[in-house]
């Protein structure tokens, strides 16, 4: 039995005529210690899926099992790193992490908790900035705080909701390595969502595409990524194994796109039959 299981999960929003099914018949099994990446276009319901696993939404049908227990609501056993960081702007870095730690380990000694908080702030290299407020930090630093907060909860599973999508390319690259390094340390189960193929290949044990459809998105066939760790992005361009994965995944998504296009070709606008005339000046 898998560690995290989604059985025939679907989710719709809205009422009556405006009702839109976002996810339909999602089946997924994540093994303990696995780094699973869900890859999809923007707007395909990725965040909805992670919110369902986090328990922030209730599924319409089906059920979600974590370690055999059915998920009924949000809880600290699933650490979430939100897309917009979701740091509390009136608290410092330290206080943001402390809020989580004090809540989840209330029985610990005071000193023990401080040590724990400092350890995770250190892990994301923010010790120097620990008394700063989020507004004084860069986007990458904010996301690191968010990661530290989620890790400090010592969750059974870590849910990353497009954690790097709001960052610039360079910061993104650095943080990808950091996430991999941190994950290597304790091999916690991770479900990450992204729209970046390279990021997915760099981090994932397995990539599952989220495929949009007319009546809600579904999960496609998974790609097992058998590249050895620690993966080096710099070598990717010359590495045939990596290029194989990238080509395959890219082709898959392009096919999805064209299938979608041909599906609604009838709705395409008719263009007027005019040709541009060359005008001499």
């Amino acid at each position, binding site marked *: 039995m898998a560690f995290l299981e989604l059985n025939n999960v679907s989710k719709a929003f809205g009422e009556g005529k405006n009702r839109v099914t976002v996810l339909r018949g999602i089946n997924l099994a994540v093994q303990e210690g696995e780094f699973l990446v869900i890859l999809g276009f923007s707007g395909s319901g990725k965040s909805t899926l992670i919110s369902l696993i986090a328990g922030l939404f209730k599924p319409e049908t089906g059920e979600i099992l974590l370690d055999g227990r059915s998920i009924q609501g*949000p809880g600290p056993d699933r650490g979430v790193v*939100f897309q917009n960081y979701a740091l509390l702007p009136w608290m410092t870095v330290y206080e943001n992490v402390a809020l989580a730690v004090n809540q989840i380990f209330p029985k610990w000694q005071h000193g023990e908790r401080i040590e724990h908080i400092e350890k995770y702030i250190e892990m994301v290299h923010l010790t120097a900035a620990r008394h700063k*407020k989020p507004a004084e930090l860069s986007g990458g630093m904010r996301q690191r705080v968010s990661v530290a907060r989620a890790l400090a909860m010592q969750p059974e599973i870590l849910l990353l909701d497009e954690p790097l999508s709001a960052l610039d390319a360079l910061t993104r690259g650095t943080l990808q390595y950091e996430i991999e390094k941190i994950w290597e340390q304790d091999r916690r189960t991770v479900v990450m969502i992204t729209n970046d193929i390279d990021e997915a290949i760099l981090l994932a044990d397995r990539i599952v595409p989220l495929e949009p459809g007319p009546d809600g998105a579904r999960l496609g066939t998974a790609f097992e990524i058998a590249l050895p760790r620690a993966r080096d992005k710099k070598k990717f361009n010359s590495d045939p194994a990596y290029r194989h994965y990238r080509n395959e995944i890219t082709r898959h998504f392009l096919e999805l796109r064209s299938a979608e296009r041909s599906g609604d070709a009838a709705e395409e606008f008719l263009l007027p039959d005019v040709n541009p005339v060359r005008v001499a000046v």
Partner: protein
Amino acid sequence: MTDRIIKTLEFTGLNWFVPLIRLACGEDRAEQFKAVWRTSGIAIVTFLIFLAIWSLGASNINTSLGRVPGPAQVFREARGLIDEHWEERAKRAEFYKREKQRVAEKKMKSPGEDVRIRKYTGKPTYFDQIRTSLITVFTGFLIASLIAIPIGVLCGLNRIIMTALSPLIQIFKPVSPVAWLPIVTMIVSALYTTRGGLFEKSFIISAITVALCSLWPALINTALGVASIDKDYINVSRVLQLKFSTQVFKIVLPASMPYIFAGLRISLGVGWMVLIAAEMLAQNPGLGKFVWDEFQNGSSHSLARIMVAVFTIGVVGFFLDRIMVTLHKSVSFNHEPVSA
């Protein structure tokens, strides 16, 4: 040091002092003079034009109390009130000196006897009245905040409570203080029967009337602020499964502070306006009563004195607003602009 003063001034919204400070520190003169003109020069010219129109217009209107006073007369009357204040203070000091002497003498004569210093019973001066008004408005404001913020938070958090209370809020919000006052008077008179209690009855009536009228902006803004908290913050609290009290104090209240203080600012402004009317009718010894007494008095000084009161009310109201703006800015974590 200069930077610090300038920052403080900008923070409290007293921006027009900034060029003066810069000028005093010898920064680029021409530039700063221009800035002085832009910030305070124009305002001063407008005020002078206002005084001119007032003074011209006033001399043409005759009332039963004589001519409508112009700026000069009002200024004289203001100085008169200040002089009166010091005279009264001197009288009081003298009275207590005499009392002390009397008590000391009596004690010498018969040591066992219990002699007390009698209280001075002179009339309150203009500044005493301003003080009473301020105490009353802050008491009312405090009562209003203590009721409005908790209810506002509950309304913002829970749609059912909001729906339940919304008709009451909608109906009572537009009620004028004058309409509340008789009811408050009757109820307070019925309940507060102890003579010589801690507070004057008129003080309680005024404060409660202020509270009843300044409650609504704070309540509505708090509810709005709480209801519009960033969903991410709520999600964090849900993932952590925070207790209700932790959620309220660590997330909900800090997140809605800017809204709450924007509401409190309006509340204090409304309270100050309401207070004058309440004091007139409840005969609470404050600025409102001062205006009413002068009106009833009908001496040739009265109109000018009332105008002094009008300006005082305006200036005090302005400073109350500045205080609230400063507080509002100090709790705005996201540095959104606060309208001046």
